[in-house]
């Protein structure tokens, strides 16, 4: 076990850390002059967007920076050990997994798929010469502590037999095997469903108090920090721009960027309810199920993805579907886009049954925006080609007219004309999502179906995209159908909400009313698990 650090000595301390990474044509200073100090039982939140240097700081503390990275600091210690002077061998024997442990963003892929969780837990101790029996006892004890059901029975099971939330619990237990003084959690809940997120954050808090460890919580989400960090450190482009007690920073942010980050957290919107427009989409008792079998000789199974769902979407309104993964909301979207036919029920688009609406007419009525702007744009086409493509398919206008219209929607979506001949690979995530929106708008559709339009983006970019969508909705009188698991987005954008679980509608209502007084338990759980300010 580790020698305990005495209470007066900080668990971790960094003075004037600079990390430079080799990039094509020079070096990039990923972290510039960072200092921090962390006492036992304290949680420090580091917040910033991707590329702000928050993860690099954590990796520097673990001695896990990518090869070629240069580290300079006046002082850097964890649990009394001077990291700067240690070799990789010493770091691996004394720091990693010992004095400092780390959990990562992706619980689904952070466990080795071919070894049992028992082996992966115990090896954290046996690889350093501890007896297997000792390690097993410790592992079971921790699995109990992190709230994994039936640890003894599930000890020899493999990662794929656990859910994402359970895997993150296992990873937390694994990190705590050697009683580290410091636990670094790098976006530990970003990949999890909202209800699970809250459970994992509470677990981290509980472990910190029970075991007296210090925690560095890295996140892009200020909401997470407000409940779980004692102090916050805001990073921008490698520099710490603001640091202080969490409440103080939240109440009175000193730096303009911090203020923007806090403001960009989605807030309740106050839009007058839209006038009762004509019904653009009418869905009546629609169900969808999939039959599949695992192998040639196994029995056919049926999954009911959507069960008996009915709703109406009126012109000019924004309707949000909320639910966790597997709730059937994306299946619903695919049926509305005509990508799948429902097994039962009726869908009418602008008064006509969807089956008898020709593809080209439907395209003028309704266009999609997808979650992943990296995957939904053809990398071999230029921006103007991508945006113009619907006009080519529908044979609308001459070449010059098409180019003219392309420039117009690019301007509407805030895309600089210099991107006209650029390729998606040369653009950021937010810019790509603007291209996707421009492509959706070019045919002047009346409805836009947005499937998780912002969940792949950084928070301040999210806010920009949401603001863009709101602006477009007003100017072009668009009707929006929003599919999301992010209740913050719902509160900012939607007039009405439909909550889904396991393919069924759990609750539906006006956004403000539903947020104020949810009638169903599931909705309450969803709302409670949002890290709101």
């Amino acid at each position, binding site marked *: 076990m580790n020698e305990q650090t005495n209470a007066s000595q900080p668990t971790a301390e960094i003075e004037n850390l600079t990390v430079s990474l080799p990039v094509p044509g020079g070096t990039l200073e990923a972290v510039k002059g960072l200092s921090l100090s962390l006492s036992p039982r304290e949680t420090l939140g580091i917040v910033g967007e991707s590329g702000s240097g928050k993860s690099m700081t954590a990796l520097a503390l673990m001695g896990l920076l990518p090869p070629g990275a240069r580290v300079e600091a006046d002082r850097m210690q964890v649990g009394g050990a001077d990291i700067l002077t240690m070799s990789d061998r010493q770091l*691996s024997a004394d720091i990693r997994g010992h004095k400092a442990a780390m959990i990562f963003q992706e619980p689904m892929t952070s466990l080795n798929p071919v070894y049992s969780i028992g082996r992966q837990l115990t090896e954290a101790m046996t690889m350093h010469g501890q007896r297997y029996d000792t390690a097993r006892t410790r592992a079971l004890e921790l699995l109990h502590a992190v709230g994994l059901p039936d640890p003894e029975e599930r000890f020899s099971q493999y990662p794929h037999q656990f859910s994402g939330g359970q895997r993150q619990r296992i990873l937390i237990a694994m990190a705590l095997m050697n009683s580290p003084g410091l636990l670094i959690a790098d976006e530990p809940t970003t990949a999890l469903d909202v209800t699970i997120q809250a459970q994992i954050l509470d677990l981290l808090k509980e472990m910190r108090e029970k075991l007296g460890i210090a925690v560095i919580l890295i996140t892009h989400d200020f909401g997470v920090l407000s409940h779980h960090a004692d102090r916050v450190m805001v990073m921008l482009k490698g520099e710490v721009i603001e640091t202080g007690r969490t409440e103080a920073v939240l109440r009175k942010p000193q730096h303009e960027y911090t203020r923007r980050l806090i403001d960009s957290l989605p807030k309740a919107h106050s839009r007058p309810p839209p006038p009762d427009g004509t019904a653009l989409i009418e869905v009546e008792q629609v169900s969808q199920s999939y039959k599949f079998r695992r192998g040639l000789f196994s029995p056919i199974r049926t999954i009911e993805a959507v069960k008996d769902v009915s709703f109406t979407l009126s012109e000019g309104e924004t309707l949000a579907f909320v639910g966790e993964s597997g709730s059937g909301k994306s299946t619903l979207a695919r049926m509305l886009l005509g990508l799948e036919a429902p097994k039962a029920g009726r869908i009418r688009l602008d008064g006509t049954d969807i089956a008898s609406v020709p593809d080209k007419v439907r395209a003028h009525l309704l266009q999609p925006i997808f979650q992943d702007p990296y995957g939904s744009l053809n990398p071999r086409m230029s921006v103007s080609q991508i945006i113009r493509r619907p006009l080519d398919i529908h044979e609308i206008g001459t070449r010059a007219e098409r180019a003219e219209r392309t420039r117009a929607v690019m301007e509407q979506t805030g895309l600089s004309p210099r991107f006209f001949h650029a390729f998606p690979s040369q653009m950021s995530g937010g810019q790509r999502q603007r291209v996707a929106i421009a492509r959706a708008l070019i045919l002047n559709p009346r409805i836009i179906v947005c499937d998780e339009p912002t969940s792949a983006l950084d928070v301040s970019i999210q806010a920009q995209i949401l603001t863009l969508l709101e602006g477009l909705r007003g100017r072009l009188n668009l009707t929006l159908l929003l599919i999301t698991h992010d209740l913050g987005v719902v509160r900012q954008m939607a007039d009405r909400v439909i909550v889904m679980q396991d393919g069924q509608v759990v609750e539906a209502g006006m956004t403000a009313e539903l947020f104020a007084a949810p009638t169903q338990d599931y909705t309450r759980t969803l709302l409670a698990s949002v890290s709101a300010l």
Partner: protein
Amino acid sequence: MLEYILRRCGLALSVGFTISLVAFLLLNFATDPAVTMAGEEATTEEIERLRALYGFDRPLYLQYYNWLVSFFRGDFGESVHWRLPVAELVARHFPVTLLLAGMSLTVTILVAIPLGVLAAMNPNTLIDRIALSIAVAAQAIPNFWLGMMAILLLAVTWPIFPVSGNNTIWHFILPAFVLGLSSVPAIMRLTRTGLLEVMGTDYIRAARAKGYRGGALLFRHAMRNALLPVVSVLAVQFGEKLGGAIVTETVFAINGIGRLAVQSVLIGDVPVVQSLLFLFAMFFVFANLLADLLNAWLDPRIRLA
């Protein structure tokens, strides 16, 4: 797991049936077996006599049925040329081929996997380039040429190994190297890319954070995952070597079933060709089955699915 094994075996069996049917039909449509067997100078009566004797005048489905029934009884028919049961011929030649295939597979594994690991551990360095160059060279050199060069240099100029034949284990070393090297490029590249991919995964990062590094990280966390695709390809290559060592066996005058197949085709020994055709195909089916089972053993996601 048992269900998985049974399902795979069932699948292999049904593939085997299909292959036997195709082999049978191909041979009957491509040639007139009686004419082929009778030879060039046979009279019409002679051909008719053979046709009746071997039952080639009966309906095809009946011929196939009879062939299948006797096949499962272990009766593969009788060789026209050697006047011996085909089963005995195969039993005589197969161990030779099996030994050659086994030895060459060992060569492949011993050369390709360490090279692949070395290349992956030092990506885009001189070591990587050298390993890749070896792979490219091995791929570019035809088997028969490498075989002849090996004989010329290592058996004739410097008589270290015997020139040809299969009397002692020494006779197998040169051909095993020649045959084994031909599989090195594919396996080496697969090991390299597999390992590079695995080293970039989240669970390797997590293992590093746990304190793993160097060789322990490689062998206790990365290797098993990286080898999953390699095992599949190796098994198929083994099947290929059992059935396809024709060139190597011919160059080194090794009396395996590859050479037997060539001779039987040349002299039109239909029962032998038909049985070997089916046998070669079954080697592949068997090798694939082996790969599936090995992968299930290595990967719990398959085993416990």
